[in-house]
């Protein structure tokens, strides 16, 4: 196991490359997903404030 972790003595370089690479990609993914969610929520909230939309919705109901 420790032989595997050491990567023939290059463990530091291999593991840092993969670690930081994957961490950055996951961070970007999380940031993008949460940005999409909060933007959708904000648009929804703004729409609620819009009188015309509310009336149209009420008519449908």
């Amino acid at each position, binding site marked *: 196991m420790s032989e595997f972790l050491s990567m023939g003595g290059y463990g530091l370089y291999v593991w840092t490359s993969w670690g930081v690479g994957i961490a950055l*990609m996951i961070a970007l993914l999380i940031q993008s997903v949460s940005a999409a969610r909060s933007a959708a929520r904000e648009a929804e909230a703004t729409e609620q404030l819009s009188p015309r939309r509310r009336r149209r919705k009420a008519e449908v109901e």
Partner: protein
Amino acid sequence: MHRFANPTRFLRLAAAVLPFSAAVAALCLGAGLVWGLFFAPPDYQQGDTVRIMFIHVPSAMMAMGVYAGMAISSAIALIWRHAIADLIAKASAPIGATFTFICLLTGSLWGKPMWGTWWVWDARLTSMLIMLFIYLGYMALWQAFDDQTKAARAAAILALVGAINLPVIKFSVEWWNTLHQPASLITMEGPKIHESLLWPLLLMIVGFGAYYLTVLIFRVRAEIHQRRTRMLRMAQADRHNAMQAAD
């Protein structure tokens, strides 16, 4: 082309694509990770450091590929005033910049055991560094405008000017490199890639592509919703002003 300019239609299409792209990204990246780290044999010359390649090469390819996509959608946005193409270009830039950064970082981490130093002004690394500056300039230009339509057009012009310039930059940097580089150094290309390393590399490349598509969909979604919010707010302000004028 204009069929996809409608945000609602785009959102529907994106929602249909998203599960597939996310699944392909997760599967390929997961399989590539396991294969690349555990099963692929160490290279006879570069030893285990060759495993850095599985991250370095796909991110380099995507750094360039994303810019190409950005330039194409900028052209579409400029020529046809396509409403979604703008947003795709804008949403691509941070992803491309991240890939470029990962490529630089892993290049540096690969260079330390290979070259004995953290940074070498190798033609590829230097081009990537310039690429990062170009991405940052593009993103900064978007930020500089309050008016989003103006920002979109200015950024599109810059993306196209950059696309024309990038081959020239790449050529000049390679030329500069052959002038200054002592020939004894091992290049990043290394010897011909062994077949046992090719498959995990291919998996990672597909995974990176699918990852880009997945993140792109989320970012374009965010942009579409933000634009809707801005438009609604503007309409509300107009109505408010009209009511005050009537009073």
